[in-house]
């Protein structure tokens, strides 16, 4: 194959980025087929999500940001004026670092050690009566916080700090992946519905209405109950059920765009429907997409936490909801187990809300920031 042939292929597919994505998708599809047919388990489901979303984020998120540095700089100046949004961003960066490198510095969050159970956080002490096997009597023991267990331990002696770090990883994974899927699906359905109109619009919107009628959390419980708890699956379910609000918002925004001159012009020049949607409609609602995505991450994280809190989470990973569940069961002895994951959840939600609000104000040309 010479250069000309490659160029022709690239032009036919519509750009290098699309070609790369197609090649990646094809190879992943082949791997998935091998996985399913030969039960080979080359990659697990979550890794597929990692690779696809990572590729999309680099090709369609980071690369365009890099090429339009001036625009990014302009918005950064606007966002920077919102101090709460900056605090939010700082916390999110801290959380990402915690999730990425934290596990290398903490002990195994699942390792139970009953010798060390119910140890309070550093600086606190707890009086408890324990059964002494030597004297065969209950004796009162005062246990104090130690440096090894900075945040204390739960009723099985598992290190709370390690559990919190592991939970950060789970929550961020669920938050980012599920939101990625939901927002992508919502954007697709919203723009398709608005652009194609007529019967397609009617059918898609009626389906959206049906899905919206189910209370979100109940639908989640229902589906997880039927299909079983597994982190990758929970991510998929939240993604596949949480797109309705996005679809409606994007549709109403795209509806007003579709009669604008630049769309007419593109159509007059012979652009295909998919090109108009991907190259003209989606880039024009991108600021709305970013804001929706940021503001829907907290809901998704909370949904997963609530699921594991009631015992429907993936039992093989330690998430904040699960820690909170363990804490609720030992409220009268070890209060810190219930407090810590909740504070993390609360700050995470708050941080994403602040950032989302800041971005919305920055993107809104009418608001003076």
């Amino acid at each position, binding site marked *: 194959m010479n250069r000309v042939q490659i160029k022709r292929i690239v032009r036919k597919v519509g750009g290098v980025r699309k070609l790369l994505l197609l090649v990646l998708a094809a190879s992943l599809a082949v791997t998935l087929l091998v996985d399913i047919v030969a039960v080979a388990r080359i990659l697990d489901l979550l890794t597929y999500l990692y690779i696809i979303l990572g590729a999309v984020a680099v090709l369609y998120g980071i690369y365009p940001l890099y090429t339009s540095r001036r625009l990014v700089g302009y918005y950064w100046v606007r966002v920077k004026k919102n101090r709460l949004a900056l605090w939010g961003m700082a916390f999110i960066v801290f959380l990402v670092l915690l999730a990425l490198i934290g596990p290398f510095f903490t002990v195994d969050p699942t390792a139970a050690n009953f010798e060390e159970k119910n140890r309070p956080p550093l600086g606190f002490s707890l009086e408890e009566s324990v059964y002494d096997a030597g004297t065969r009597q209950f004796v009162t023991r005062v246990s104090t916080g130690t440096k090894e267990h900075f945040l204390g331990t739960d009723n099985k002696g598992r290190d709370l700090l390690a559990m919190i770090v592991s939970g950060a990883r789970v929550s961020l994974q669920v938050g980012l992946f599920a939101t990625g899927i939901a927002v992508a699906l919502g954007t697709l359905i919203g723009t398709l519905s608005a652009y194609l109109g007529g019967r397609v619009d009617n059918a898609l919107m009626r*389906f959206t209405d049906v899905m919206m009628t*189910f209370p979100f959390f*109940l*639908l989640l*419980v229902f589906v997880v*109950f039927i299909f079983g708890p597994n982190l990758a699956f929970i991510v998929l379910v939240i993604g596949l059920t949480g797109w309705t609000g996005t679809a409606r918002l994007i549709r109403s925004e795209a509806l007003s765009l579709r009669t604008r001159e630049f769309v007419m012009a593109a159509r007059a020049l012979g652009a295909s429907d998919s090109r108009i949607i991907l190259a003209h409609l989606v880039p024009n609602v991108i600021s709305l997409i970013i804001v929706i995505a940021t503001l829907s991450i907290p809901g998704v994280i909370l949904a997963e936490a609530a699921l594991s809190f009631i015992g429907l989470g993936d039992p093989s990973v330690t998430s904040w909801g699960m820690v909170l569940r363990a804490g609720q069961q030992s*409220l009268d002895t070890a209060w810190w187990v219930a407090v810590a994951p909740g504070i993390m959840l609360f700050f995470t939600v708050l941080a994403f809300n602040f950032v989302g609000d800041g971005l919305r104000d920055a993107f809104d040309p009418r608001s003076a920031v």
Partner: protein
Amino acid sequence: MLKMSEGHFQQSLIAMRQSWLRDYILRRLLYAVLIAWGVLTVTFILVRVGPTSPADKYLANVAARGQDVAQVTAAIEARYGLDRPIYEQYFSYVGSLLRGDWGWSLSTSMPVMKLLKTHWIYSFQLILLSSVFAALLGILIGIYSAVKQYSKTDYIATFLSFIGISIPNFWLGVMLILLFSVQFGLFKTYYDTGLPLFSLANLKQLVLPVITLGTGMLAGYVRYTRSAVLDNLRKEFVRTARAKGLPERTVIGKHVFRNAILPLITIIMFDLGSIVFGGAYLTEIIFGIPGLGRISFNAVFADDYAIVVAVTLISAFLVLIINLVTDITYTYLDPRVRYD
């Protein structure tokens, strides 16, 4: 030349609106039926697509008892019609739901309908009290905070409402139990079903659950009311009202409040579906209130399909009805809604 008088013209306008309203309500009703059918179908498909069948749990027990599994499977399939073609199963499913037969709960050995009838009241009182608490307090604080914009109270209210929106309600519930039940011993840690519904003791044991469920809503309503009132305060009719020399109380209470409240009511109603039902589910689990959420939660761990399906369906139908009623009342009350 025929000249229409002013009165005639107005009357024909009213008649037009009334006939349009009738059409609108009819259309909305038909549409609701369509959505209900969609909800039924989605639930049916999900249950059928799932990897386990409702009979699996039962079959595990059969195998443990040493009975012939194949024989029992055949008997169960014949009994529940699982051996019939899928479309026949679908029709019989829809038919029995319409007849009010919502299935048989294996874990409690009771018709699901009977369970729903005995347990709905606990969910209802919780949701009703929380909504009323959140709406009343939220509107009051919101108005006050808007009227006294940029005052200290306003800042505190805005700050607290931001916290209230972000606090996970199930964590709030656990913390309230920790603080008020475990540490101070003010409330019981369990829910007593023996108490009569309309008694002070029953109200007292609902205090923590109502705060748990209501805080998120309350914070939302404070924020909404505040911005709606601020919006309306800048409108021209407020300037007119003030120019007429009306006292500030009338301006706020009549002109501003009435314009701000109508959209708020729709928001409260729509909240019921999206947030409140999920929140009530969790609140009931935390506080052990035997409402629909709690029985569905128990059913999940007992592998009791009929109850889980029924609770999911019934909450979807409730959302549907609430949305329908809200839409129609809103259209009826607001004369500005367009005739198209």
